[in-house]
Structure formats: structure tokens, C-alpha cells
């Protein structure tokens, strides 16, 4: 029994059907972790990108190192670090929040590079034109650069959403009861792993396919010449 549901071991199909509600509960956690982690990655990444592009090397270089470090070390170990080290400093977060924090951190390194590449890809002439028009840096970014960078940035950011979905099972390592952990638990208790694990695979496939399809739809509707912010 799990979450108040019982499994039915009479046949594979009955078993599958009986554990579906449990897996769907795990799926909800998977989706929540994905969304939260992704939002975190989007904001933190923007911050990292801005720091990385700061005029002062004192800011830019350490940021570059942090980004590289986050990109080059395993999510699982970063997760352990947060999960075991934060409490030593009096920060006690629920496992779920620690997990989304780890997802957000690692992916902020990726998204920061996307932002940076997108902004760098705006032709130099645009900066020069803004300068010639005497626009303030804020207005240059808000009205000229960012609107043109968005169509380049969004598709790449979308790809990372799909990646984050696939990385959420790692949170099970710190006892977050997402979909894979639920399946593993069912397997541990029934000694039947094939059905729950295959179902999780299929559910992930559906989730990533649906997300990727939705993203492609969205992408096609993006105006390539840019999106004014106001």
C-alpha cells in the first residue's frame, strides 16, 4: 500500500492499472520540481549572465568560474552538497526545496550561457545605433537589445526545460518522492520492478514529447524580428 492505494498483483495489466494512481502522484511532484527548478534557473541564469558580462573583470571572471564549475560538476553531487551542507549552517530546507534549488543552480549555469550568446548575437550596429541616439544603458537593453535577443534565446531555453524534466529523478537520491522513487518503492515492496519502471519510462516519454511539441508550436509563433517589451 502506498498513498492509501493498494496494488493488484493478479496480472501485469492489473498491477499496472493499480499502481497508476501512485505514479501519477509522483508525476505531480516531478512536474512541480521541474517548474520550480526551471523558474529558478531562468532568473538565476539571467543574473549570472549579467554579472558575467559586467564591465569589471573583478565581477566577470569569478562569475565565469562559477558558471564553469556548475556546468562541469554532477548535479547529483551538487545536490548532496546542498542537502548535507546547508543544515550545518542552520539552513533547514525540505528535501523538495533543496532538490529544486540544485536543479535551478545547475541549470542557471546553462541558461546564463544562452542569455549571453543571445545578447552577443545582436549585431554590433544595434549597440552603436543606440549609442548614437544617446539612449541610456537601461533603455538600450530594454528597448533595443533584449527584444531582438528573445527570439534567439527562447528556443534554446526551451530545450533546457525538457532536460530538466529528465533530471528530476535525481531528486529521489535525497528522498524526494517523485515518479521514479515511487516506482522504485513499489518495486522494492512487490519485487516486481519491470512494470513500474517501464511505466515510468513511458510516462517520461509522454511528458518530454508533449513538452517538446508544445515548445515547437510556441517557437513557430515567435516573430523572428523581435518582441518589443512594451
Amino acid at each position, binding site marked *: 500500500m502506498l498513498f492509501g492505494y493498494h496494488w493488484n498483483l493478479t496480472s501485469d495489466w492489473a498491477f499496472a492499472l493499480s499502481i497508476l494512481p501512485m505514479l501519477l502522484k509522483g508525476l505531480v511532484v516531478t512536474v512541480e520540481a521541474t517548474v520550480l527548478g526551471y523558474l529558478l534557473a531562468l532568473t538565476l541564469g539571467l543574473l549570472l549572465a549579467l554579472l558575467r558580462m559586467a564591465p569589471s573583470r573583478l565581477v566577470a571572471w569569478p562569475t565565469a568560474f562559477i558558471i564553469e*564549475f556548475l556546468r*562541469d*560538476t*554532477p*548535479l*547529483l*553531487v*551538487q545536490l*548532496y*552538497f546542498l542537502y*548535507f*551542507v546547508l543544515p*550545518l549552517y542552520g539552513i533547514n530546507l525540505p528535501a523538495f526545496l533543496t532538490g529544486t534549488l540544485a536543479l535551478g543552480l545547475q541549470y542557471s549555469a546553462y541558461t546564463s550561457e544562452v542569455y549571453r550568446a543571445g545578447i552577443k548575437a545582436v549585431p554590433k550596429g544595434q549597440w552603436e545605433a543606440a549609442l548614437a541616439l544617446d539612449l541610456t544603458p537601461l533603455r538600450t537593453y530594454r528597448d533595443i537589445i533584449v527584444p531582438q535577443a528573445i527570439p534567439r534565446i527562447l528556443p534554446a531555453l526551451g530545450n533546457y526545460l525538457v532536460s530538466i524534466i*529528465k*533530471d*528530476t*529523478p*535525481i531528486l*529521489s*537520491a535525497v528522498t524526494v518522492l517523485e515518479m*521514479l522513487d515511487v*516506482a*522504485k518503492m513499489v*518495486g522494492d515492496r512487490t519485487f*516486481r*520492478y*519491470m512494470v513500474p*519502471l*517501464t511505466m*515510468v*519510462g513511458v510516462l*517520461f*516519454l509522454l511528458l*518530454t*514529447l508533449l513538452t517538446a511539441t508544445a515548445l515547437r508550436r510556441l517557437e513557430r509563433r515567435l516573430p523572428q524580428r523581435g518582441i518589443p517589451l512594451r
Partner: protein
Amino acid sequence: MMFAQLLPPLLRGAEITAQITLASTLLGALFAFAAGIGKLSRHRALRWPAVGYIEVFRGTSLLVQLFWLFFALPIIGISLSPLSAGILGLSLNIGAYGAEVVRGALQATARGQREAARALNFTPRQTLWRILLPQALPEMMPPFGNLAVQNLKDSALVSLITLADLTYQAQNLRNITLQTVPILTATLLLYFAMALVLTAAMRWLERRVRYAAGHER
């Protein structure tokens, strides 16, 4: 307990990590070429399995794949050791991503090259091996480098199927000594160092490939 005592077990784990990464990257390259080329085949019997493999392994989580190989397969009588399950899972996963690199690089070769090959009456197979692959290979190397680093990081997940890699050793050591901060810091640094070495190695390999493919002389 000091660093000097913590380091040896971590280094033992790092060695396992390095071995697993190397083995699964090589095996993954094999899967990548087979599936990437298969996806471009004129024959459905080759194309469909390639597409299916790529979609399934890119569409699901590596950890799910590892658990499936390690926990589910034995039930139908195929028992893999943690090492085989780990290497197989990692290489199947990275191979699916690599397959898209191979396919993309092959498709990006100039159309004129294919037409010239046909005008000279090369068979499709000769065209692939003699004309297209030598030109596409150098283009594949930078994304392959990224995938190799990705694979190194992914290899940490094999600790969850009881393989004594660096992450596993770190967790183990942490449980025994409770020296959480130094152990996990050292672990992160070791991964970072290995990633730097791997990146450098892949750059070197890229230059070798360019040279061998006749692009630099």
C-alpha cells in the same frame, strides 16, 4: 581526520569514475554512429530501429534507464552486474544524443559532395565511408567533447545502482566520518578537474581527427 586520509578512498572512486566514463564514451560513440547512420538509411529496417532507439533514450531519464537495466532486467532473466548495467546505461544514453550529432553532421555535408560521388559512381556505402564521414567527423568532434563531459557528470548516477564510483565513495566516507564539507568539496573539485582534463583530451583528439581527415597539414 584530515584530507590526507580522506583522499585515497576518493581517488579510488575517481579511478572507477574515469574508467566508467571512458568505457561508456567509447561504447556510446559506437551506438552513436550506428544509430546516426541508421537514421539516414534508405532502408526502413535500419531507419526505424535507429529512430526508436534515439527517441526512447533521449526522451526518458538516464536514472530511469539505469534502474530499468539494473532492477527490471533481472526479472526476465538478464542479470547485469552494477558495472555492466552502469556502462551499458550510460553508453546507450549518451549514444542516443551522439546519434543526433552524427546525423546532423552527415546531413550538413555539402550536397555537391554527394552529387559528385554519385557522378563518379560510388556506391552509397562508399560515399558514406570515403566521402561523407571523413568530412563530417571533424565537425562532430566539438559536440562529442561536450557529450563526453556530460557523460562524466552523468556517471555519478551509477552510484545509485551501488557502483563504487567517486560519488559513491564520497557518500560512503561521509556516512563513516561525518566530514561532510571537506569530502563533498573535494569530490566536486575532483569532478571539475576530471572535466577539465577530459575537455583538453577531446580538444587534442579533435586536432588529431582534423589532421587525419586531411583538413590540416
